[in-house]
């Protein structure tokens, strides 16, 4: 056995970005025909390591061996030539091209497309039979689901003769059922002798599918173990460097008066597509209503309407008073004035201005507040900076430096900046979307505690998350949204991931049986 060369071997890989040591003396051996997990917090250096392997970055030091042969990978072309294929977290597909066109993109033979397309069609058929990767070759990317799009990415890599497949957080956008399908495909690929590297922050996925797992922390490889010999608590501790609570501790909710009532809410977008179809629900003071659903089923639009930047018809009452849904009082400023704070789903596109300093971001959306003005004309930047320093300390933002641009913080710390800004406003209602997306485990614990603490202060919280685990552990009630409709409400104690997963796919329990 020992004379088989590893499919990939890295020796002493180091990479620094200025003062930040992103990778430090990384060594890793992945045997052919295995699935190897790489787990670590955000900013632990997983992505940097994979970028080095795929030729996006050049390592400062270290060697890469593919099947025992030393290779140089100066760019992604070289990575592909070495048999490495990468499936990115954010797919790199041309939306208005067909599957076939996307597969050959960059790998055309000759100036005319027709021969390449014919060849790709044959190979796609063969690949589909070999690995169970069925995709309609003539479907246009924007018309197929994310699960299918991901298959196209995998096909692209296989079409380029990849023997080593790297998947970066592949299940982030998938339903539990789609994730299962993906894992079946990965198992099939493993049987056929492909080597797979799975980067994830989900412990469950590591346990379920990998053969071996490496843990990264602060740029270093802290451990490589056989998956069968480890457990989720042990991995979590290796990742964070201390014991971590994987479950959230909380008292039962004490719901008070209705803070938010939504009645028959409908949204039709520019293309005439109904995004929300008669959605109704309510949230009381002192409780968390979790909205479970696969991304793209209307929950984003729901948050946007409540946050004041999407129009809708229907009725929304806050503290018993109707709010304007289409007129001049339907903007974000008016919503904030009504005591609605909003932690948006996408902090980089919405919640923060990435080029603004932390102190500028700390008043974003509240920059009209009189306490931040020096006079009618000028903002009181000194007061804002001081306020920011306080809030950064209370929310444990690291580093607590108001003069750093938002983009210089890690995902978890960016999120803490947004949370500090919104929670410290003492809102009646907090809208919170994907609170821990791209956030490391240590910070997740902190963020969950803050959300529970706000609930215990008697605030109403509407939580939207695509992470079922998060919904189950935080919510006092769970509503499932599918295709713009509410599929029903459950109490966390009376349901489980299976039932919610089916509801998220639009099925009720009866139908599934």
């Amino acid at each position, binding site marked *: 056995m020992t004379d088989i060369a590893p499919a990939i071997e890295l020796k002493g890989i180091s990479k620094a970005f*200025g003062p930040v040591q992103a990778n430090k003396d990384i060594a890793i051996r992945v045997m052919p025909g295995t699935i190897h997990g790489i787990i670590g917090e955000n900013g632990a250096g997983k992505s940097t390591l994979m970028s080095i392997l795929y030729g996006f970055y050049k390592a400062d030091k270290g060697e890469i061996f593919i099947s025992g042969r030393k290779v140089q990978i100066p760019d992604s072309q070289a990575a592909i030539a070495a048999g490495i294929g990468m499936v990115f977290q954010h797919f790199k597909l041309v939306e208005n091209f067909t599957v076939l066109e996307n597969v050959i993109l960059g790998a055309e033979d000759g100036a005319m497309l027709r021969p390449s397309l014919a060849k790709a069609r044959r190979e796609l058929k063969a690949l589909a039979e070999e690995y169970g990767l069925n995709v309609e070759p003539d479907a246009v990317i924007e018309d197929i689901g994310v699960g299918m799009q991901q298959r196209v990415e995998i096909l692209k890599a296989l079409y380029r003769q990849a023997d080593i497949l790297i998947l970066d957080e592949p299940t982030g956008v998938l339903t539990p059922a789609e994730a299962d399908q993906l894992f079946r495909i990965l198992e099939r690929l493993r049987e056929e002798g492909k080597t797979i590297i799975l980067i994830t922050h989900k412990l469950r996925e590591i346990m379920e599918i990998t053969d071996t797992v490496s843990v990264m922390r602060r740029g270093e490889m802290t451990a490589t173990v056989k998956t069968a010999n480890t457990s989720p608590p042990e991995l979590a501790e290796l990742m964070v460097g201390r014991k971590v609570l994987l479950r959230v501790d909380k008292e039962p909710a004490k719901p008070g008066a209705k803070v938010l009532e939504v009645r028959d809410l409908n949204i039709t977008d520019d293309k005439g597509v109904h995004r929300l179809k008669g959605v109704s629900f309510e949230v009381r003071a002192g409780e968390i209503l979790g909205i479970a659903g696969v991304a793209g089923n209307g929950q984003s639009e729901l948050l946007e309407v409540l*946050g004041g930047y999407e129009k809708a018809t229907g009725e929304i009452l806050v503290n018993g008073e109707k709010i304007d849904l289409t007129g001049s009082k339907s903007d974000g400023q008016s919503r*904030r004035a009504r005591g609605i704070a909003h932690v*948006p789903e996408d902090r980089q596109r*919405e919640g923060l*201005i990435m080029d603004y300093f932390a102190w500028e971001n700390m008043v*974003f959306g509240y920059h009209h507040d009189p306490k931040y003005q020096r006079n009618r004309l000028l*903002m009181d930047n000194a007061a804002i900076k001081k306020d920011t320093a306080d809030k950064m300390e209370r929310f444990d933002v690291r580093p607590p430096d108001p003069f750093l641009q938002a983009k210089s913080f890690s995902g978890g710390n960016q999120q803490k900046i947004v949370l500090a800004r919104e929670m410290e406003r003492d809102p009646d209602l907090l809208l919170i979307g994907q609170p821990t997306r791209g956030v490391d485990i240590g910070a997740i614990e902190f963020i969950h505690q803050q959300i529970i603490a706000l609930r215990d202060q008697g605030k109403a919280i509407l939580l939207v998350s695509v992470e079922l685990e998060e919904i189950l552990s935080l919510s006092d009630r769970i509503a499932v949204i599918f295709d713009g409709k509410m599929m029903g409400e459950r109490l966390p104690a009376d349901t489980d991931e299976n039932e919610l997963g089916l509801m998220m796919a639009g099925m009720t329990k009866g139908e599934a049986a």
Partner: protein
Amino acid sequence: MERMPKWADVILVPLVSLILAAIISALVILAIGENPWAALKLMVSGALGSSYGWGYTLYYATNFIFTGLAVAIAFHARMFNIGGEGQAILGGLGVAIVCLYIPWPHWTLAILGATAGAALFGAAWAVIPAFLQAKRGSHIVITTIMFNFMAAALLNYLLVNQLKAPGMEPATSKFPEATNLPSFQDMFSFGETTLFRGTPANVAFFVAVLACIAIWVLIWKTRLGYEIRAFGHSESAAKYAGISPTKIIMVSMIISGGLAGMMAVNNVMGEAERLVLNAVEGAGFIGIAVALMGRSHPFGVFLAAILFGFLYQGGAELALWTSIPREMIVVIQALVIMFTGALDQMVRAPLEKVFIAFNKPQPEPQAKPQAKMGG
């Protein structure tokens, strides 16, 4: 370290671009059989070597400060206002109407009225493209370019048919004496010594300096500036925060158009003292290069405007005293615009690489602070 230090970004990049432009200009001058070193010396002495040269350099610079600021403020809202030329033409119209039809007792009052008129007309010319962009999604670049042509045609029509003074020339009559602005010669000549003799630089230069300061305060210190920059960085985030895109597009374009229009206080009121055709002479387009080179910062715009003023005046001197043809001056100016504006990234990317290469050893002392030498 993904980026280079700020000073390199603000100073080194434009400087290297400038040197590259100078080198290529020198090669071109060599190619037509002239001495580039002598040409440079002539440009420097002609534009900066005497109060006469400065009088022209600062006059041109004043124009470019206004149009540069106009482009810069729009850049902060991620609007590409190509229409500075047309807005400055309309500003001239505003100045002419204010000066010709209102009996001003003194220039100090007239300059206030004319500035307001210029800003109003310039802003009005920018507001229509802004509205079309905000409400209809018509691209601001296309509409403002079209509005440049329309402004030129409109001025042509008005000067030929409505505002023309008696005589052959399509120009208004001279503005009344009470509206004539003090030139640098009037202001800075004491007793025997006459400085800036016969040069067009005038008190409008100080209006331009004030405009730089005002725009700096606006962008960095006020709520509106905060919103404009936020919108410019991320429209989606601005919507989340309740910042109205329509408002920001309209307001930033109004300010932009107003600034471009205010240029007329310098060239129409301060220099020509009447409205003529082609008064703007491309200053609206130079403003784009000035804003790019000045990194959209009012102070940077000020410095870049002086540089372009120097190029204009130095170029005129070259044409006057050497056999380097007038067209060659335009080539040199074009090279500077091309390198500092359009080819900015060509210089920036390699410089960034150099900085990253030099910054490599840094992590070691960072990790062990006690190893740091000195302080």
